[in-house]
């Protein structure tokens, strides 16, 4: 197992596989189980200030190469989330608290509360709708991203990860804006739509959704590679990782760890154990002595 150990922003992970935000991470018992079954860490569902029920189902559509989801950020509100973190922490592995908000102060308040609950790091979900802009996301406004990240860094001691959205013209610009973050997480889902031609209607109740899974793997890889090359920052890669080779691609593109989401729909929770063992096999047969040696190996 020690072959697989890695570190991000000083946090130790026994292997490079972390549960992605929004997948099986609303209930503390689920997170605990996933950690016990092989994940090296979990990111919680994105938590906001007030309780939200999210969109009514259909909230997911199975599409070729992945899922389209519009869950609508359901969450009990930060004040009701402490219990879940507590249960998840019983597994004795890192729990990363994901938060979302519409502005700087909201993000700061959420981060402080997450830290209070014992989260080992904060992940900023910057893909929520922009309160000021119309239709665009918080994560497409570089100045706002800088403000959020810088303010939070001043107010909490645990590491802060900024999760970037691919729905922008220039993610590199946003990555640079998030300079103060301890690490970057990329990518969130890509906006998409699915229509049922027999119903003659969009499938999701929210019409649009976020595309995840294999379909976005090569898009995520592109961003990790480009941002790693240009900024050198620590990166956690996410998007379409479904087997060991996918994870290794992300690592060689510059990720120090990766997150798994949609694969759980294909393979169930055992995806963690299966992919871990695949990475070990690869490292042994290809002569890699540590994850670190592989990080960015495909960069020029």
């Amino acid at each position, binding site marked *: 197992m020690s072959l697989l150990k890695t570190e991000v922003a000083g946090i130790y992970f026994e292997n490079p596989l972390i549960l992605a935000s929004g997948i099986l991470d609303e209930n503390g*018992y689920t997170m605990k189980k996933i950690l016990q079954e092989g994940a090296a860490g979990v990111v919680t569902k994105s938590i906001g200030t007030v309780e939200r029920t999210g969109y009514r189902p*259909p909230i*997911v559509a199975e599409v070729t190469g992945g899922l389209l989801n519009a869950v609508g950020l359901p969450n*009990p509100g930060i004040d009701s989330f402490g219990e879940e973190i507590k249960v998840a922490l019983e597994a004795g592995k890192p729990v990363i608290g994901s938060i979302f908000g519409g502005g700087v102060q909201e993000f700061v308040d959420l981060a402080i509360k997450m830290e209070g609950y014992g989260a080992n790091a904060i992940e900023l979900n910057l893909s929520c709708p922009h309160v000021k802009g119309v239709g665009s996301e918080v994560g497409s406004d570089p100045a706002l991203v800088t403000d959020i990240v810088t303010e939070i860094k001043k107010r909490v001691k645990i590491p802060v990860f900024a999760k970037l959205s691919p729905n922008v013209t220039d993610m590199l610009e946003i990555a640079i804006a998030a300079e103060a973050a301890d690490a970057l997480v990329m990518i969130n889902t890509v906006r998409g739509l699915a229509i*049922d031609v*027999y*119903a003659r209607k969009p499938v999701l109740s929210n019409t649009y959704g976020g595309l995840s899974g294999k379909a976005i793997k090569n898009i995520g890889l592109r961003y990790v590679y480009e941002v790693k090359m240009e900024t050198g920052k620590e990166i956690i890669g996410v998007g379409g990782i479904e087997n060991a080779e996918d994870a290794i691609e992300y690592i060689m593109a510059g990720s120090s760890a990766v997150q798994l989401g949609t694969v759980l729909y294909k393979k169930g929770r055992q995806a963690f154990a299966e992919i871990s063992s695949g990475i070990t096999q690869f490292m042994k047969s290809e002569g890699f002595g540590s994850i670190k040696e592989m990080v960015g190996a495909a960069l020029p």
Partner: protein
Amino acid sequence: MIHSTITGIERVSPTTVSIRFPWEAAVLPGQFIMVWIPGLGEIPISLSHIGDIKGITIKSFGPTSEALTKMKEGDRIFFRGPYGRPFTQVKGKILVVGGGSGMAGLLPLINSDTVGVVSARTKDELLFVDRFLEGNVIKVTDDGSAGIKGIAVDGLKGLDLQKFTKMYICGPELMLRSVYRYIREIDVDAEFSLERLMKCGIGVCDSCSIDGYQLCRDGPTFSKKQISGMHEFGAFKLTESGKRIALPK
């Protein structure tokens, strides 16, 4: 989404109908589908009929289930699935215990030898009692309008449960809890089909989880042994927002 055209509708109680539609898919007892009414919603429903002409049996609880109960022959039905772990089937005499619409998912298990305990609020809502041979069914109603007045577990008290190779129980969680507590110490094998909020049906959203298991993937059927290890069973659930609430003791 899969779609099919409704070939038959049968009213099985004042608030409940069975909808039949052709669908060539291998489905096992205990599995469910996510039924979509475009523009309205999507809900999990057990398959009550698993032959070539599949069927679901729906009780009207809210907007989506109500719309389903109003569908007509020739209408199109949209769904995805089948999902979930089926009941483990056994040779030998079995007992099914169904509360309210919970009988729908048990229907495919019933044969001429099966014994049933069927409970409901009132007489009219007792489902599928005619599917058992005369004398093989015990009725239980909240209001005493038929059979025993009481709750499902009261229907069990007159039976020698150890006679059965296996019990299958399906209904609201509080009913499952009382049955579980009653049979906990009795030497009888049992499988429970749980019901919780289900948003995705495919093991990603966590809305249906209980003690880390996803009802939609690892369940909805769980063995007595699995249930015995669960902290959340009959004790806590998460609401639509993911807020943890305690169930009535």
